[in-house]
Protein backbone atom coordinates (compact mmCIF):
# COMPACT_ATOMS: atom_id res chain seq x y z
CA UNK A 1 0.00 0.00 0.00
CA UNK A 2 2.93 2.23 0.66
CA UNK A 3 3.81 2.77 -2.94
CA UNK A 4 0.20 3.51 -3.82
CA UNK A 5 0.27 6.20 -1.20
CA UNK A 6 3.47 7.57 -2.67
CA UNK A 7 2.03 7.41 -6.15
CA UNK A 8 -0.82 9.74 -5.27
CA UNK A 9 0.20 13.24 -6.26
CA UNK A 10 -0.03 15.88 -3.56
CA UNK A 11 -2.70 17.76 -5.50
CA UNK A 12 -4.93 14.73 -5.47
CA UNK A 13 -4.61 14.54 -1.70
CA UNK A 14 -5.31 18.23 -1.34
CA UNK A 15 -8.36 17.97 -3.55
CA UNK A 16 -9.48 14.89 -1.69
CA UNK A 17 -9.14 16.67 1.63
CA UNK A 18 -11.14 19.55 0.26
CA UNK A 19 -13.82 17.30 -1.08
CA UNK A 20 -14.09 15.64 2.29
CA UNK A 21 -14.54 19.08 3.78
CA UNK A 22 -11.43 18.78 5.93
CA UNK A 23 -9.66 21.83 7.32
CA UNK A 24 -7.23 23.35 4.87
CA UNK A 25 -3.79 22.16 5.83
CA UNK A 26 -1.48 22.64 2.89
CA UNK A 27 -0.43 25.94 1.42
CA UNK A 28 -2.21 24.88 -1.73
CA UNK A 29 -5.63 24.58 -0.19
CA UNK A 30 -5.11 27.80 1.72
CA UNK A 31 -4.28 29.50 -1.54
CA UNK A 32 -7.35 28.00 -3.19
CA UNK A 33 -9.50 29.12 -0.32
CA UNK A 34 -8.18 32.67 -0.55
CA UNK A 35 -8.84 32.80 -4.27
CA UNK A 36 -12.34 31.39 -3.73
CA UNK A 37 -13.29 34.46 -1.74
CA UNK A 38 -11.43 36.72 -4.16
CA UNK A 39 -13.46 35.23 -7.02
CA UNK A 40 -16.71 35.53 -5.15
CA UNK A 41 -16.19 39.06 -3.88
CA UNK A 42 -17.10 41.02 -7.05
CA UNK A 43 -20.24 38.95 -7.65
CA UNK A 44 -21.32 39.26 -4.03
CA UNK A 45 -20.64 42.99 -4.01
CA UNK A 46 -22.79 43.52 -7.11
CA UNK A 47 -25.61 41.40 -5.67
CA UNK A 48 -25.46 43.29 -2.37
CA UNK A 49 -25.62 46.62 -4.21
CA UNK A 50 -28.35 45.66 -6.64
CA UNK A 51 -30.52 43.45 -4.42
CA UNK A 52 -29.63 43.59 -0.72
CA UNK A 53 -29.31 47.30 -0.15
CA UNK A 54 -32.27 48.36 -2.35
CA UNK A 55 -34.49 45.81 -0.59
CA UNK A 56 -33.56 47.22 2.82
CA UNK A 57 -34.14 50.74 1.49
CA UNK A 58 -37.59 49.79 0.17
CA UNK A 59 -38.51 48.36 3.59
CA UNK A 60 -37.15 51.52 5.24
CA UNK A 61 -39.16 53.78 2.92
CA UNK A 62 -42.29 51.83 3.83
CA UNK A 63 -41.76 52.97 7.43
CA UNK A 64 -41.41 56.66 6.53
CA UNK A 65 -43.40 59.47 4.98
CA UNK A 66 -41.16 59.65 1.89
CA UNK A 67 -42.46 61.25 -1.28
CA UNK A 68 -40.97 61.34 -4.75
CA UNK A 69 -39.71 64.89 -4.26
CA UNK A 70 -38.44 64.24 -0.75
CA UNK A 71 -36.64 60.92 -0.48
CA UNK A 72 -33.64 61.93 1.61
CA UNK A 73 -35.52 63.97 4.19
CA UNK A 74 -38.15 61.33 4.93
CA UNK A 75 -39.12 60.86 8.58
CA UNK A 76 -39.76 57.60 10.36
CA UNK A 77 -43.47 57.07 10.99
CA UNK A 78 -43.54 53.49 12.19
CA UNK A 79 -46.15 51.17 10.71
CA UNK A 80 -48.51 53.97 9.76
CA UNK A 81 -48.40 53.09 6.05
CA UNK A 82 -49.64 49.63 6.91
CA UNK A 83 -51.95 50.28 9.81
CA UNK A 84 -53.15 53.46 11.43
CA UNK A 85 -56.07 54.29 13.69
CA UNK A 86 -57.19 57.87 13.58
CA UNK A 87 -59.21 58.79 16.64
CA UNK A 88 -61.94 61.36 15.94
CA UNK A 89 -62.81 61.59 19.63
CA UNK A 90 -66.06 60.48 21.30
CA UNK A 91 -65.14 56.87 20.66
CA UNK A 92 -65.30 57.51 16.92
CA UNK A 93 -62.39 56.68 14.72
CA UNK A 94 -61.27 55.12 11.49
CA UNK A 95 -58.56 52.73 10.34
CA UNK A 96 -56.22 53.73 7.52
CA UNK A 97 -53.23 52.18 5.83
CA UNK A 98 -52.55 49.43 3.35
CA UNK A 99 -54.19 46.69 5.40
CA UNK A 100 -57.47 48.64 5.39
CA UNK A 101 -57.31 49.80 1.80
CA UNK A 102 -59.99 48.13 -0.36
CA UNK A 103 -57.95 48.95 -3.49
CA UNK A 104 -54.98 47.02 -2.12
CA UNK A 105 -57.16 44.01 -1.30
CA UNK A 106 -58.67 44.27 -4.77
CA UNK A 107 -55.14 44.09 -6.20
CA UNK A 108 -54.34 41.12 -3.96
CA UNK A 109 -57.49 39.34 -5.07
CA UNK A 110 -56.79 40.07 -8.76
CA UNK A 111 -53.24 38.76 -8.46
CA UNK A 112 -54.24 35.58 -6.67
CA UNK A 113 -57.15 34.94 -9.06
CA UNK A 114 -54.93 35.51 -12.08
CA UNK A 115 -52.10 33.34 -10.69
CA UNK A 116 -54.27 30.39 -9.67
CA UNK A 117 -56.29 30.24 -12.89
CA UNK A 118 -53.47 30.86 -15.35
CA UNK A 119 -51.04 28.48 -13.63
CA UNK A 120 -53.75 25.78 -13.44
CA UNK A 121 -54.57 26.08 -17.16
CA UNK A 122 -50.88 26.23 -18.08
CA UNK A 123 -50.11 23.09 -16.08
CA UNK A 124 -52.85 21.02 -17.71
CA UNK A 125 -52.14 22.37 -21.19
CA UNK A 126 -48.38 22.11 -20.63
CA UNK A 127 -48.80 18.46 -19.64
CA UNK A 128 -50.77 17.77 -22.82
CA UNK A 129 -48.12 19.53 -24.94
CA UNK A 130 -45.34 17.64 -23.17
CA UNK A 131 -47.03 14.27 -23.73
CA UNK A 132 -47.42 15.07 -27.43
CA UNK A 133 -43.81 16.22 -27.74
CA UNK A 134 -42.64 13.08 -25.94
CA UNK A 135 -44.30 10.81 -28.51
CA UNK A 136 -42.46 9.71 -31.63
CA UNK A 137 -43.93 11.18 -34.78
CA UNK A 138 -42.85 12.73 -38.04
CA UNK A 139 -42.07 16.42 -37.75
CA UNK A 140 -41.55 16.37 -33.99
CA UNK A 141 -38.48 18.61 -34.26
CA UNK A 142 -40.55 21.16 -36.17
CA UNK A 143 -43.33 21.15 -33.56
CA UNK A 144 -40.80 21.49 -30.75
CA UNK A 145 -39.33 24.55 -32.48
CA UNK A 146 -42.78 26.05 -33.08
CA UNK A 147 -43.66 25.70 -29.41
CA UNK A 148 -40.64 27.80 -28.44
CA UNK A 149 -41.85 30.82 -30.42
CA UNK A 150 -44.31 32.26 -27.86
CA UNK A 151 -41.65 31.93 -25.17
CA UNK A 152 -39.12 33.89 -27.26
CA UNK A 153 -41.47 36.81 -27.92
CA UNK A 154 -41.07 39.74 -25.49
CA UNK A 155 -44.03 40.12 -23.12
CA UNK A 156 -44.69 43.65 -24.32
CA UNK A 157 -44.85 42.46 -27.92
CA UNK A 158 -47.20 39.62 -26.95
CA UNK A 159 -49.44 42.07 -25.14
CA UNK A 160 -49.57 44.38 -28.16
CA UNK A 161 -50.12 41.53 -30.62
CA UNK A 162 -53.00 40.18 -28.61
CA UNK A 163 -54.44 43.63 -27.93
CA UNK A 164 -54.73 43.97 -31.70
CA UNK A 165 -56.16 40.49 -32.14
CA UNK A 166 -58.66 41.23 -29.36
CA UNK A 167 -59.62 44.63 -30.78
CA UNK A 168 -63.39 45.03 -30.46
CA UNK A 169 -64.05 46.29 -34.00
CA UNK A 170 -61.25 44.94 -36.17
CA UNK A 171 -59.88 42.07 -34.10
CA UNK A 172 -59.45 38.65 -35.64
CA UNK A 173 -60.48 36.87 -32.42
CA UNK A 174 -64.02 38.25 -32.56
CA UNK A 175 -64.11 37.50 -36.27
CA UNK A 176 -63.15 33.87 -35.64
CA UNK A 177 -65.50 33.33 -32.74
CA UNK A 178 -68.39 34.89 -34.66
CA UNK A 179 -67.63 32.76 -37.71
CA UNK A 180 -67.81 29.61 -35.59
CA UNK A 181 -70.92 30.94 -33.86
CA UNK A 182 -69.63 30.97 -30.29
CA UNK A 183 -70.46 34.66 -29.86
CA UNK A 184 -73.11 36.67 -31.67
CA UNK A 185 -71.71 40.16 -31.25
CA UNK A 186 -68.16 41.52 -30.90
CA UNK A 187 -66.63 41.59 -27.42
CA UNK A 188 -64.40 44.41 -26.20
CA UNK A 189 -62.04 41.90 -24.61
CA UNK A 190 -59.58 44.21 -22.92
CA UNK A 191 -61.94 47.01 -21.98
CA UNK A 192 -65.04 45.14 -20.76
CA UNK A 193 -64.79 44.56 -16.97
CA UNK A 194 -66.23 41.06 -17.42
CA UNK A 195 -63.61 39.88 -19.88
CA UNK A 196 -60.52 41.99 -19.08
CA UNK A 197 -59.08 39.46 -16.63
CA UNK A 198 -59.75 36.62 -19.06
CA UNK A 199 -57.96 38.55 -21.79
CA UNK A 200 -54.90 38.75 -19.52
CA UNK A 201 -55.14 35.05 -18.66
CA UNK A 202 -55.47 34.05 -22.34
CA UNK A 203 -52.31 35.94 -23.30
CA UNK A 204 -50.40 34.58 -20.31
CA UNK A 205 -51.46 31.02 -21.09
CA UNK A 206 -50.37 31.47 -24.69
CA UNK A 207 -47.01 32.86 -23.70
CA UNK A 208 -46.02 30.55 -20.85
CA UNK A 209 -47.52 27.16 -21.71
CA UNK A 210 -44.41 26.33 -23.80
CA UNK A 211 -42.15 26.96 -20.81
CA UNK A 212 -44.32 24.72 -18.67
CA UNK A 213 -44.37 22.06 -21.39
CA UNK A 214 -40.57 22.05 -21.65
CA UNK A 215 -40.08 21.69 -17.90
CA UNK A 216 -42.59 18.83 -17.76
CA UNK A 217 -41.06 17.26 -20.87
CA UNK A 218 -37.68 17.18 -19.12
CA UNK A 219 -39.36 15.22 -16.33
CA UNK A 220 -41.07 12.87 -18.80
CA UNK A 221 -37.80 12.05 -20.50
CA UNK A 222 -36.36 10.84 -17.20
CA UNK A 223 -39.02 8.12 -16.95
CA UNK A 224 -37.26 4.89 -18.02
CA UNK A 225 -38.75 3.27 -21.12
CA UNK A 226 -38.94 -0.22 -19.61
CA UNK A 227 -41.67 0.98 -17.27
CA UNK A 228 -43.93 1.39 -20.29
CA UNK A 229 -42.72 -1.91 -21.77
CA UNK A 230 -43.69 -3.74 -18.60
CA UNK A 231 -47.11 -2.09 -18.52
CA UNK A 232 -47.67 -2.98 -22.17
CA UNK A 233 -46.79 -6.63 -21.63
CA UNK A 234 -49.15 -6.76 -18.68
CA UNK A 235 -51.86 -5.34 -20.96
CA UNK A 236 -52.65 -2.33 -18.81
CA UNK A 237 -54.75 0.38 -20.43
CA UNK A 238 -52.63 3.46 -21.43
CA UNK A 239 -54.90 5.83 -19.49
CA UNK A 240 -54.36 3.78 -16.36
CA UNK A 241 -50.61 3.68 -17.02
CA UNK A 242 -50.62 7.48 -17.27
CA UNK A 243 -52.40 8.04 -13.96
CA UNK A 244 -50.79 5.19 -12.02
CA UNK A 245 -47.23 5.27 -13.39
CA UNK A 246 -46.32 8.35 -15.41
CA UNK A 247 -48.02 11.01 -13.30
CA UNK A 248 -46.54 9.90 -9.95
CA UNK A 249 -43.08 9.72 -11.53
CA UNK A 250 -43.20 13.21 -13.02
CA UNK A 251 -44.96 14.76 -10.03
CA UNK A 252 -41.75 16.38 -8.69
CA UNK A 253 -41.01 17.99 -12.06
CA UNK A 254 -44.58 19.32 -12.26
CA UNK A 255 -44.47 20.62 -8.70
CA UNK A 256 -41.26 22.55 -9.29
CA UNK A 257 -42.61 23.97 -12.56
CA UNK A 258 -45.84 25.03 -10.86
CA UNK A 259 -44.05 26.83 -8.03
CA UNK A 260 -41.71 28.54 -10.48
CA UNK A 261 -44.63 29.77 -12.55
CA UNK A 262 -46.65 30.76 -9.50
CA UNK A 263 -43.78 32.95 -8.25
CA UNK A 264 -43.61 34.53 -11.68
CA UNK A 265 -47.36 35.06 -11.87
CA UNK A 266 -47.57 36.68 -8.45
CA UNK A 267 -45.22 39.48 -9.52
CA UNK A 268 -46.93 40.08 -12.89
CA UNK A 269 -46.54 43.62 -14.15
CA UNK A 270 -45.73 44.11 -17.87
CA UNK A 271 -48.61 42.17 -19.35
CA UNK A 272 -51.31 43.82 -17.25
CA UNK A 273 -49.79 47.29 -17.51
CA UNK A 274 -49.76 47.15 -21.31
CA UNK A 275 -52.76 44.98 -22.18
CA UNK A 276 -55.33 46.49 -19.81
CA UNK A 277 -54.06 49.87 -18.60
CA UNK A 278 -55.97 51.58 -15.77
CA UNK A 279 -58.40 48.75 -15.28
CA UNK A 280 -59.39 48.00 -11.67
CA UNK A 281 -60.53 44.51 -12.72
CA UNK A 282 -56.99 43.44 -13.59
CA UNK A 283 -54.73 45.65 -11.45
CA UNK A 284 -52.11 43.40 -9.82
CA UNK A 285 -50.08 43.96 -6.65
CA UNK A 286 -47.01 45.02 -8.67
CA UNK A 287 -49.06 47.48 -10.74
CA UNK A 288 -50.64 48.87 -7.56
CA UNK A 289 -47.19 49.40 -6.02
CA UNK A 290 -45.69 50.95 -9.15
CA UNK A 291 -48.61 53.37 -9.53
CA UNK A 292 -48.36 54.53 -5.94
CA UNK A 293 -44.60 54.90 -6.16
CA UNK A 294 -44.35 56.88 -9.37
CA UNK A 295 -47.73 58.13 -10.48
CA UNK A 296 -49.71 59.02 -7.35
CA UNK A 297 -46.66 60.38 -5.53
CA UNK A 298 -47.27 58.09 -2.54
CA UNK A 299 -43.74 56.74 -2.46
CA UNK A 300 -43.88 55.41 1.11
CA UNK A 301 -47.26 53.78 0.54
CA UNK A 302 -46.02 52.13 -2.67
CA UNK A 303 -42.95 50.91 -0.78
CA UNK A 304 -45.22 49.33 1.82
CA UNK A 305 -47.10 47.49 -0.93
CA UNK A 306 -43.78 46.33 -2.43
CA UNK A 307 -42.65 45.08 0.97
CA UNK A 308 -45.82 43.06 1.51
CA UNK A 309 -45.50 41.49 -1.95
CA UNK A 310 -41.90 40.64 -1.15
CA UNK A 311 -42.94 38.90 2.07
CA UNK A 312 -45.54 36.81 0.25
CA UNK A 313 -43.02 35.73 -2.38
CA UNK A 314 -40.27 35.09 0.18
CA UNK A 315 -42.62 32.78 2.05
CA UNK A 316 -43.44 30.80 -1.11
CA UNK A 317 -39.75 30.64 -2.06
CA UNK A 318 -38.85 29.12 1.29
CA UNK A 319 -41.62 26.61 0.76
CA UNK A 320 -40.24 25.83 -2.69
CA UNK A 321 -36.69 25.29 -1.44
CA UNK A 322 -38.04 22.88 1.15
CA UNK A 323 -40.22 21.01 -1.33
CA UNK A 324 -37.63 20.78 -4.09
CA UNK A 325 -34.95 19.64 -1.60
CA UNK A 326 -32.28 21.24 -3.71
CA UNK A 327 -28.87 19.69 -3.94
CA UNK A 328 -26.69 22.48 -2.59
CA UNK A 329 -23.95 20.51 -0.93
CA UNK A 330 -21.86 19.77 -3.99
CA UNK A 331 -21.44 16.53 -5.84
CA UNK A 332 -23.46 14.50 -3.37
CA UNK A 333 -26.85 12.85 -3.81
Amino acid at each position, binding site marked *: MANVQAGVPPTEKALEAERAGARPRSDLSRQRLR*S*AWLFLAPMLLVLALVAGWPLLKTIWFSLTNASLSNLEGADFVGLRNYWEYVDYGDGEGEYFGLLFDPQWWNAVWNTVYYSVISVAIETVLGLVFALVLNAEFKGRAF*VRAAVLIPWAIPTIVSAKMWAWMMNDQFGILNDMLMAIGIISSPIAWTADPDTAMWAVIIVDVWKTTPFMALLILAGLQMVPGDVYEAAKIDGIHPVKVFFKVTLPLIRPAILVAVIFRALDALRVFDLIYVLTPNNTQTKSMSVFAQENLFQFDKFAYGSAASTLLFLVIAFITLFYIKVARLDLGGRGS
Partner: protein
Amino acid sequence: MPYALKRTGFYALVVFIVLFSVFPFYYAILTSLKSGTALFRVNYLPVDFDLANYEGVLTNGVFPTNILNSVIVAVVVVAISLFLAVTAAYALSRINFAGRGLLLLTILAVSMFPQIAVLAGLFEMVRWAGLYNTLFSLIFAYMIFTLPFTVWVLTTFMRDLPVEIEEAAIVDGASPFTIVMRVFLPLMWPALVTTGLLAFIAAWNEFLFALTFVSNNSTRTVPVAIALLSGASEQEIPWGTIMAASVIVTVPLIVLVLIFQRKIISGLTAGGVKG
Protein backbone atom coordinates in the same frame (compact mmCIF):
# COMPACT_ATOMS: atom_id res chain seq x y z
CA MET B 1 -60.91 3.08 -30.61
CA PRO B 2 -59.74 2.17 -34.13
CA TYR B 3 -56.12 2.92 -34.84
CA ALA B 4 -56.84 5.31 -37.74
CA LEU B 5 -59.16 7.44 -35.62
CA LYS B 6 -56.60 7.63 -32.81
CA ARG B 7 -53.93 8.66 -35.28
CA THR B 8 -56.11 11.38 -36.77
CA GLY B 9 -56.93 12.66 -33.31
CA PHE B 10 -53.26 12.80 -32.42
CA TYR B 11 -52.32 14.71 -35.54
CA ALA B 12 -55.25 17.09 -35.02
CA LEU B 13 -53.76 17.84 -31.61
CA VAL B 14 -50.34 18.42 -33.19
CA VAL B 15 -51.83 20.82 -35.73
CA PHE B 16 -53.67 22.64 -32.94
CA ILE B 17 -50.44 23.02 -30.94
CA VAL B 18 -48.57 24.44 -33.93
CA LEU B 19 -51.36 26.87 -34.86
CA PHE B 20 -51.78 27.94 -31.23
CA SER B 21 -48.05 28.70 -30.98
CA VAL B 22 -47.43 30.30 -34.34
CA PHE B 23 -50.64 32.04 -35.39
CA PRO B 24 -50.44 35.23 -33.28
CA PHE B 25 -46.98 36.07 -34.56
CA TYR B 26 -47.98 35.16 -38.10
CA TYR B 27 -50.92 37.53 -37.77
CA ALA B 28 -48.62 40.29 -36.46
CA ILE B 29 -46.47 39.93 -39.59
CA LEU B 30 -49.62 39.98 -41.74
CA THR B 31 -50.80 43.18 -40.07
CA SER B 32 -47.41 44.85 -40.32
CA LEU B 33 -47.59 44.50 -44.12
CA LYS B 34 -50.88 46.33 -44.38
CA SER B 35 -51.53 50.03 -44.35
CA GLY B 36 -54.37 52.47 -44.71
CA THR B 37 -57.85 50.97 -44.71
CA ALA B 38 -56.51 47.47 -45.46
CA LEU B 39 -55.59 47.31 -41.77
CA PHE B 40 -59.23 47.20 -40.82
CA ARG B 41 -60.15 44.24 -43.00
CA VAL B 42 -59.63 40.88 -41.34
CA ASN B 43 -57.61 38.52 -43.54
CA TYR B 44 -56.37 35.06 -42.68
CA LEU B 45 -54.00 34.79 -45.62
CA PRO B 46 -51.43 37.31 -46.82
CA VAL B 47 -53.00 39.54 -49.44
CA ASP B 48 -51.12 42.81 -49.01
CA PHE B 49 -47.42 43.41 -49.20
CA ASP B 50 -46.79 46.99 -48.20
CA LEU B 51 -43.54 47.91 -46.43
CA ALA B 52 -44.73 51.41 -45.51
CA ASN B 53 -44.96 50.57 -41.79
CA TYR B 54 -41.39 49.32 -41.70
CA GLU B 55 -40.18 52.35 -43.57
CA GLY B 56 -42.09 54.59 -41.19
CA VAL B 57 -40.82 53.04 -38.00
CA LEU B 58 -37.21 52.88 -39.18
CA THR B 59 -36.97 56.39 -40.62
CA ASN B 60 -39.24 58.59 -38.52
CA GLY B 61 -38.65 59.15 -34.86
CA VAL B 62 -36.21 57.55 -32.48
CA PHE B 63 -36.99 53.87 -32.89
CA PRO B 64 -33.60 53.01 -34.47
CA THR B 65 -31.94 54.67 -31.46
CA ASN B 66 -34.14 52.58 -29.17
CA ILE B 67 -32.97 49.42 -30.92
CA LEU B 68 -29.35 50.50 -30.52
CA ASN B 69 -29.97 51.21 -26.81
CA SER B 70 -31.41 47.74 -26.31
CA VAL B 71 -28.46 46.12 -28.09
CA ILE B 72 -25.94 48.06 -25.99
CA VAL B 73 -27.69 47.28 -22.70
CA ALA B 74 -28.19 43.59 -23.46
CA VAL B 75 -24.64 43.01 -24.76
CA VAL B 76 -22.95 44.79 -21.83
CA VAL B 77 -25.19 43.04 -19.30
CA VAL B 78 -24.32 39.64 -20.81
CA ALA B 79 -20.58 40.39 -20.86
CA ILE B 80 -20.43 41.61 -17.26
CA SER B 81 -22.63 38.91 -15.81
CA LEU B 82 -20.78 36.12 -17.63
CA PHE B 83 -17.41 37.41 -16.44
CA LEU B 84 -18.53 37.73 -12.82
CA ALA B 85 -20.37 34.42 -12.97
CA VAL B 86 -17.54 32.29 -14.42
CA THR B 87 -15.10 33.15 -11.66
CA ALA B 88 -17.79 32.89 -8.97
CA ALA B 89 -19.01 29.57 -10.35
CA TYR B 90 -15.46 28.21 -10.23
CA ALA B 91 -15.22 29.05 -6.53
CA LEU B 92 -18.69 27.67 -5.82
CA SER B 93 -18.23 24.41 -7.71
CA ARG B 94 -14.56 23.43 -7.39
CA ILE B 95 -13.44 24.76 -4.03
CA ASN B 96 -14.89 23.49 -0.81
CA PHE B 97 -15.32 26.14 1.84
CA ALA B 98 -17.54 26.72 4.81
CA GLY B 99 -20.81 28.46 3.99
CA ARG B 100 -20.92 27.39 0.37
CA GLY B 101 -24.39 25.86 0.62
CA LEU B 102 -25.75 28.95 2.34
CA LEU B 103 -24.23 31.15 -0.35
CA LEU B 104 -25.84 29.13 -3.13
CA LEU B 105 -29.15 29.31 -1.30
CA THR B 106 -28.84 33.10 -1.04
CA ILE B 107 -28.12 33.37 -4.75
CA LEU B 108 -31.14 31.23 -5.55
CA ALA B 109 -33.28 33.37 -3.24
CA VAL B 110 -32.17 36.55 -5.03
CA SER B 111 -33.24 35.07 -8.35
CA MET B 112 -36.75 34.81 -6.94
CA PHE B 113 -36.84 38.47 -5.85
CA PRO B 114 -39.82 40.31 -7.25
CA GLN B 115 -38.39 43.29 -9.14
CA ILE B 116 -40.93 45.57 -7.54
CA ALA B 117 -39.42 44.87 -4.08
CA VAL B 118 -36.18 46.60 -4.99
CA LEU B 119 -37.70 49.23 -7.26
CA ALA B 120 -38.00 52.01 -4.67
CA GLY B 121 -34.51 51.42 -3.24
CA LEU B 122 -32.91 51.13 -6.67
CA PHE B 123 -34.67 54.28 -7.85
CA GLU B 124 -33.18 56.28 -4.98
CA MET B 125 -29.74 54.79 -5.68
CA VAL B 126 -29.93 55.49 -9.41
CA ARG B 127 -30.94 59.09 -8.76
CA TRP B 128 -28.28 59.54 -6.09
CA ALA B 129 -25.55 58.24 -8.42
CA GLY B 130 -26.71 60.52 -11.22
CA LEU B 131 -27.60 57.57 -13.43
CA TYR B 132 -31.25 58.51 -13.93
CA ASN B 133 -32.08 58.67 -17.65
CA THR B 134 -28.91 56.84 -18.65
CA LEU B 135 -28.36 53.34 -19.96
CA PHE B 136 -25.96 52.69 -17.05
CA SER B 137 -28.93 52.56 -14.68
CA LEU B 138 -30.39 49.66 -16.68
CA ILE B 139 -27.07 47.83 -17.09
CA PHE B 140 -26.61 48.01 -13.33
CA ALA B 141 -30.18 47.10 -12.40
CA TYR B 142 -30.40 44.12 -14.77
CA MET B 143 -27.66 42.35 -12.80
CA ILE B 144 -30.35 41.47 -10.27
CA PHE B 145 -31.89 38.90 -12.58
CA THR B 146 -29.02 37.90 -14.91
CA LEU B 147 -26.32 37.35 -12.29
CA PRO B 148 -28.02 34.82 -9.96
CA PHE B 149 -29.22 32.86 -12.95
CA THR B 150 -25.83 32.71 -14.73
CA VAL B 151 -24.00 31.84 -11.50
CA TRP B 152 -26.48 29.08 -10.74
CA VAL B 153 -26.37 27.45 -14.18
CA LEU B 154 -22.60 27.73 -14.61
CA THR B 155 -22.05 26.29 -11.13
CA THR B 156 -24.12 23.21 -11.93
CA PHE B 157 -22.26 22.86 -15.22
CA MET B 158 -18.75 23.17 -13.71
CA ARG B 159 -19.59 20.81 -10.87
CA ASP B 160 -20.09 18.00 -13.37
CA LEU B 161 -16.68 18.38 -15.01
CA PRO B 162 -14.17 15.69 -13.92
CA VAL B 163 -11.59 16.63 -11.30
CA GLU B 164 -8.68 15.39 -13.47
CA ILE B 165 -8.85 18.34 -15.82
CA GLU B 166 -7.41 20.78 -13.33
CA GLU B 167 -4.91 18.46 -11.66
CA ALA B 168 -2.21 18.90 -14.27
CA ALA B 169 -2.58 22.66 -14.08
CA ILE B 170 -2.33 22.60 -10.28
CA VAL B 171 0.82 20.46 -10.45
CA ASP B 172 2.30 22.98 -12.86
CA GLY B 173 1.64 25.64 -10.26
CA ALA B 174 -0.96 27.56 -12.22
CA SER B 175 -2.87 30.17 -10.25
CA PRO B 176 -6.62 29.69 -9.84
CA PHE B 177 -7.29 32.59 -12.22
CA THR B 178 -5.13 30.94 -14.89
CA ILE B 179 -6.94 27.67 -14.30
CA VAL B 180 -10.32 29.32 -14.87
CA MET B 181 -9.20 31.14 -17.99
CA ARG B 182 -7.02 28.43 -19.58
CA VAL B 183 -8.57 25.18 -18.43
CA PHE B 184 -12.25 25.80 -17.78
CA LEU B 185 -13.18 28.53 -20.20
CA PRO B 186 -12.39 26.50 -23.34
CA LEU B 187 -14.55 23.67 -22.02
CA MET B 188 -17.42 25.90 -21.10
CA TRP B 189 -18.45 27.38 -24.42
CA PRO B 190 -21.70 25.41 -24.65
CA ALA B 191 -22.80 26.55 -21.19
CA LEU B 192 -21.65 30.12 -21.81
CA VAL B 193 -23.58 30.34 -25.07
CA THR B 194 -26.76 29.07 -23.43
CA THR B 195 -26.63 31.25 -20.32
CA GLY B 196 -25.46 34.24 -22.34
CA LEU B 197 -28.36 33.88 -24.72
CA LEU B 198 -30.90 33.51 -21.92
CA ALA B 199 -29.45 36.56 -20.15
CA PHE B 200 -29.56 38.48 -23.43
CA ILE B 201 -33.23 37.65 -23.93
CA ALA B 202 -34.07 38.62 -20.35
CA ALA B 203 -32.29 41.96 -20.69
CA TRP B 204 -33.78 42.62 -24.13
CA ASN B 205 -37.33 42.01 -22.87
CA GLU B 206 -37.19 43.81 -19.50
CA PHE B 207 -39.87 46.45 -18.99
CA LEU B 208 -40.38 47.62 -15.38
CA PHE B 209 -36.89 49.03 -14.72
CA ALA B 210 -36.68 50.46 -18.24
CA LEU B 211 -40.00 52.23 -17.70
CA THR B 212 -38.96 53.62 -14.31
CA PHE B 213 -35.31 54.64 -14.69
CA VAL B 214 -35.50 56.26 -18.11
CA SER B 215 -37.97 58.97 -19.10
CA ASN B 216 -36.21 60.30 -22.16
CA ASN B 217 -37.55 59.13 -25.56
CA SER B 218 -34.12 58.71 -27.11
CA THR B 219 -32.70 56.77 -24.14
CA ARG B 220 -35.53 54.24 -23.98
CA THR B 221 -35.16 50.57 -24.83
CA VAL B 222 -37.47 48.83 -27.30
CA PRO B 223 -40.08 47.29 -24.96
CA VAL B 224 -40.91 50.68 -23.48
CA ALA B 225 -40.74 52.35 -26.89
CA ILE B 226 -43.25 49.86 -28.29
CA ALA B 227 -45.54 50.15 -25.28
CA LEU B 228 -45.61 53.93 -25.66
CA LEU B 229 -45.92 54.13 -29.45
CA SER B 230 -48.99 56.22 -30.06
CA GLY B 231 -50.72 57.99 -32.86
CA ALA B 232 -51.87 61.54 -33.32
CA SER B 233 -54.70 61.09 -30.86
CA GLU B 234 -55.71 58.72 -28.08
CA GLN B 235 -58.21 56.95 -30.34
CA GLU B 236 -55.81 56.49 -33.22
CA ILE B 237 -53.58 53.62 -32.21
CA PRO B 238 -51.07 53.03 -35.04
CA TRP B 239 -51.47 49.24 -35.16
CA GLY B 240 -49.52 48.85 -38.39
CA THR B 241 -46.50 50.67 -36.98
CA ILE B 242 -46.68 48.83 -33.66
CA MET B 243 -46.78 45.47 -35.43
CA ALA B 244 -43.85 46.42 -37.69
CA ALA B 245 -41.79 47.47 -34.66
CA SER B 246 -42.78 44.29 -32.85
CA VAL B 247 -41.73 42.10 -35.77
CA ILE B 248 -38.39 43.92 -36.05
CA VAL B 249 -37.47 43.36 -32.41
CA THR B 250 -38.77 39.79 -32.29
CA VAL B 251 -37.39 38.21 -35.47
CA PRO B 252 -33.74 38.24 -34.30
CA LEU B 253 -34.79 36.61 -31.02
CA ILE B 254 -36.78 33.89 -32.75
CA VAL B 255 -33.89 33.17 -35.14
CA LEU B 256 -31.46 32.88 -32.21
CA VAL B 257 -33.82 30.69 -30.25
CA LEU B 258 -34.43 28.36 -33.17
CA ILE B 259 -30.69 28.03 -33.87
CA PHE B 260 -29.86 27.26 -30.26
CA GLN B 261 -33.10 25.52 -29.30
CA ARG B 262 -31.50 22.35 -27.91
CA LYS B 263 -29.07 24.31 -25.74
CA ILE B 264 -31.84 26.61 -24.53
CA ILE B 265 -34.03 23.75 -23.46
CA SER B 266 -31.19 22.20 -21.46
CA GLY B 267 -30.34 25.60 -19.95
CA LEU B 268 -33.93 26.26 -18.94
CA THR B 269 -34.28 22.89 -17.31
CA ALA B 270 -30.93 23.21 -15.53
CA GLY B 271 -32.01 26.55 -14.07
CA GLY B 272 -35.47 25.31 -13.28
CA VAL B 273 -35.39 21.72 -12.16
CA LYS B 274 -32.12 20.81 -10.59
CA GLY B 275 -33.45 18.79 -7.74
